């Protein structure tokens, strides 16, 4: 594998340089001075950061006192055993009906009668009453049992997908109701949500008929979009137990990405359109969060934007490689990305310096995506260029479903013609994050003709003239 030091002329991101230098210094492969000598133009910025890094040392090995540890372990295991027994006892208690243990047959008989009554009433009152129950409630198992029965009698996989996503939404509603009162029950609801999503995904994979699969994916994506909104609202309500809610939010976005990946293999144009809408949706939310000075949430949303952006670029590359609706997707992408860059500029203008970097990363990713879209778009206008030529070195033959872990915007391979990698803003912070310039050169129609930094924004407003 090529070492980072050998990458020579390739333009590397400062974070890649810093983290690689730290790794080399920590492992003893290089000294701080050697690292600085490799990057003379950035040595000042690098030195300041590496000095901080080498000063962070592992603390001495504080340990638990061994006698305390033994006692604590015994207490922990006892606590777990007690909890386990409590759980099994509570189930046994339900079926004891207050009868002493020696009346085993009486218990069984009464249980059978009760079960029969319960079954006969399931269709009516109890099942209805259970619909409003929450994890931990006595009637909650009835609610889940009713759902299981409905899944069991559902027709085909497409119906089961629909039902599972409906139940997933119920789990989110439960989560919202519990997020201020009980952490464990909130986690139970989120666990249930995850299980419903997994089950939905499993059923989708079983659909072999292409039109049914496309229809099912479309419906599932609509449901997931609603669930993302539900999670956003739950996060905005600043619940007492934020972590499970945050987890549900991540699950919903991951599900969206996975579904879009699958859809891109069935209907690439539809997948591209939904993905671009989702990207803009995330950015608008980031803008709202920036307006509210909730920068932590804003950064989380921006990471989701990047996740969708990477998928969008992969979809575009797949379309270009297969020449499947590539022109339409390029046009859609250019329109959407221009709007995204406008929103990013707008956020950037009101953001404190310390948060500019996250905007900058999104901007770089967006510009790279835009350059990918422009490349082929311009080739359409240029009769001399071959439409079969791969749009970039890493696009050939890739499908949207692959390499979801790749992070092109971080790994220093943004060397598309005319794309200028901006300074991270550490030493001097020119332009306050606005001086990037799109660099894609799309405004004049000349490929790679841009690259000049502009202080007024991304410069993409005239991209699609």
């Amino acid at each position, binding site marked *: 594998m090529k070492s980072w030091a050998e990458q020579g002329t390739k333009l590397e991101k400062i*974070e890649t340089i810093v983290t690689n230098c730290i790794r080399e210094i920590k492992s003893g492969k290089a000294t701080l001075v050697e690292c600085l000598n490799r990057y003379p133009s950035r040595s000042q910025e690098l030195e300041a950061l590496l000095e901080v890094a080498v000063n*962070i040392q592992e603390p001495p090995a*504080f340990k638990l006192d061994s006698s305390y540890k033994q006692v604590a372990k015994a207490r922990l295991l006892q606590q777990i055993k007690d909890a*386990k027994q409590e759980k099994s006892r509570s189930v046994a208690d339900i079926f004891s009906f207050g009868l002493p243990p020696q009346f085993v047959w009486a218990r069984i008989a009464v249980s059978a009668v009760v079960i029969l009554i319960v079954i006969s009433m399931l269709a009516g009152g109890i099942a209805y009453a259970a619909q409003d129950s929450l994890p931990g409630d006595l009637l909650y198992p009835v609610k889940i049992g009713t759902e299981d029965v409905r899944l069991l009698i559902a027709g085909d996989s497409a119906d089961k997908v629909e039902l599972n996503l409906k139940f997933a939404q119920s789990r989110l509603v439960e989560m919202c109701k519990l997020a201020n009162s009980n952490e464990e029950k909130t986690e139970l609801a989120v666990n249930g949500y995850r299980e419903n999503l997994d089950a939905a995904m499993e059923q989708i994979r079983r659909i072999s008929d292409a039109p049914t699969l496309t229809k099912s994916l479309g419906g599932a994506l609509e449901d997931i979009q609603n669930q993302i909104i539900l999670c956003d609202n739950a996060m905005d309500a600043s619940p007492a137990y934020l972590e499970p809610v945050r987890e549900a939010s991540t699950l919903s976005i991951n599900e969206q990405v996975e579904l879009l990946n699958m859809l891109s293999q069935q209907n690439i144009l539809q997948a591209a359109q939904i993905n671009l809408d989702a990207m803009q949706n995330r950015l608008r939310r980031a803008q709202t969060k920036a307006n509210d000075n909730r920068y932590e949430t804003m950064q989380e949303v921006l990471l989701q934007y990047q996740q969708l952006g990477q998928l969008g670029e992969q979809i575009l590359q797949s379309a270009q490689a297969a020449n499947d609706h590539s022109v339409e997707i390029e046009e859609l992408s250019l329109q959407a990305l221009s709007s995204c860059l406008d929103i990013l500029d707008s956020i950037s203008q009101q953001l404190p310096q310390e948060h500019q970097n996250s905007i900058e990363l999104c901007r770089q990713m967006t510009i790279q995506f835009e350059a990918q879209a422009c490349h082929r778009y311009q080739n359409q206008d240029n009769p001399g260029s071959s439409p079969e030529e791969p749009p970039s070195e890493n696009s050939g033959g890739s499908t949207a479903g692959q390499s979801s872990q790749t992070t092109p915007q*971080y790994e220093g391979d943004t060397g598309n013609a005319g794309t200028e990698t901006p300074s991270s803003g550490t030493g001097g912070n020119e332009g306050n994050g606005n001086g990037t310039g799109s660099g894609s050169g799309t405004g004049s129609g000349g490929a790679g003709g841009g690259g000049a930094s502009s202080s007024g924004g991304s410069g993409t407003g005239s991209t699609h003239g």
Partner: protein
Amino acid sequence: MHDTNSEDSRLNLEVESMVDLAVGGDIEAFGRLYDIFADRIYRHIYYRTSNIEDARDLTQEVFIKAWQALPRYKRSKTPFLGWLFTISHNRVIDYYRTKKDYAYLDNEIIVEDREGSPEKLVEVQFDQQEVRRAILQLPEEQQQVILMSFIEGFEYSEIAAALNKTEGNIRVIVHRALKKMREILGRAGN
């Protein structure tokens, strides 16, 4: 963390099999995991709280939480220790949210030198207090990444898996955190 010797590999295998057993409800196997990881978790929490009693209590809570959440761990692709650290991180955050006491920033952590003087405990000063204070003033996510990377020695890929992010995201967070620490340390120096 790179496991370069056979002892580490053996330990990893043991951890894997103990985790499998524990997920299946084996309490003794979970006890073995406690033996292996309790000190690491305690050190992590003590580093952040500088209060022995609180660190002990929180360590206990982390393992209780871990037991309850084990079925979820089965599906994550994170090293077990990394997963425990994410629980620890969240517990510490919740702890300070409810406590709203920032005195921990002024507390210094001390090390009890038992081996040097078994009769009389000697307090050894830890000479990284300024750096520690700077780390503790970072935003939560940056704090977690710096601690996992620099203090606990996790690889970026492992941190990424534990935090459900990409390795590129982690590099960006490290970079931001170092910049922020530089500012904080610069202010403290002035």
